[in-house]
């Protein structure tokens, strides 16, 4: 009886150990395909360089059939970012549009499509996208205002460009770029009355 009890205890201990190692094996699998795609886009955005397998990683993320709508939208944004860094603006616009189609509330997709459209000299559409990103309460609104300021400036609307640079500077006083741009402007006010 004692032996049977001991054998059971050893068997249970073995199962527990197996369970623990199985749990650990899940942990060491590393980031998911979507996280890899996201990291690749962030890295490309920081360095201005797209890695050899980055687009393929994001292709796989975009094409995964069992992903959620949110995952697909984010994967499109990140693949679009890779295209944008490569200067492939047409492909970037298409990916950001797919992201918006999948998730119309994804503010970063509007911001990024605005950047791609602006690179194509389509400033009116770019301004519309930046405005939509702000309406959707985009994270880092200072960056969106900065982008819209550049689009306004490129479209010849210096007054609105100035106001958006000023708004970006107000939202993020520690960011020197808006202040630098404001210094280029020579502004006056109409006398009161």
């Amino acid at each position: 009886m004692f032996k049977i009890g001991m054998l059971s205890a050893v068997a249970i201990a073995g199962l527990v150990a197996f369970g623990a190692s199985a749990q650990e094996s899940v942990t060491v699998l590393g980031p998911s395909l979507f996280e890899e795609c996201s990291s690749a886009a962030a890295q490309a955005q920081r360095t201005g360089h797209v890695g050899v397998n980055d687009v393929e990683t994001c292709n796989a993320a975009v094409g995964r059939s069992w992903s959620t709508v949110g995952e697909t939208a984010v994967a499109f944004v990140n693949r679009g970012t890779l295209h944008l860094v490569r200067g492939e603006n047409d492909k970037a616009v298409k990916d950001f549009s797919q992201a918006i189609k999948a998730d119309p509330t994804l503010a970063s997709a509007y911001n990024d499509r605005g950047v791609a459209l602006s690179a194509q000299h389509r400033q009116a559409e770019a301004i519309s996208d930046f405005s939509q990103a702000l309406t959707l309460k985009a994270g880092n609104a200072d960056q969106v205002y900065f982008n819209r300021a550049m689009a306004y400036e490129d479209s010849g609307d210096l007054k609105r460009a100035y106001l958006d640079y000023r708004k970006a500077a107000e939202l993020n006083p520690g960011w020197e770029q808006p202040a630098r741009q404001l210094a280029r402007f020579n502004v006056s006010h109409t006398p009161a009355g």
Partner: protein
Amino acid sequence: MRLVLSAALAVLLVSGAAFAGEDDEILSDLVVVTAAPRPADVKMVVQPAKTAPAEKQAKAETPAPVQDDQKPIKTASK
């Protein structure tokens, strides 16, 4: 009670109108005379999206957060 509510509503309407007209006022008051050319190295900021936690992905309602250490990238014009 009705009087108080009406007064509160009037205050809200007036302040709302004032807020809505603020931008227009700034625009009409402001005259940008000139702007020096923008340096070529000033670039727009791209916001890559982070993969959201599973429960948020299902709802797809929350815009993905953006990292603070983002820097402008070079985008090629066509």
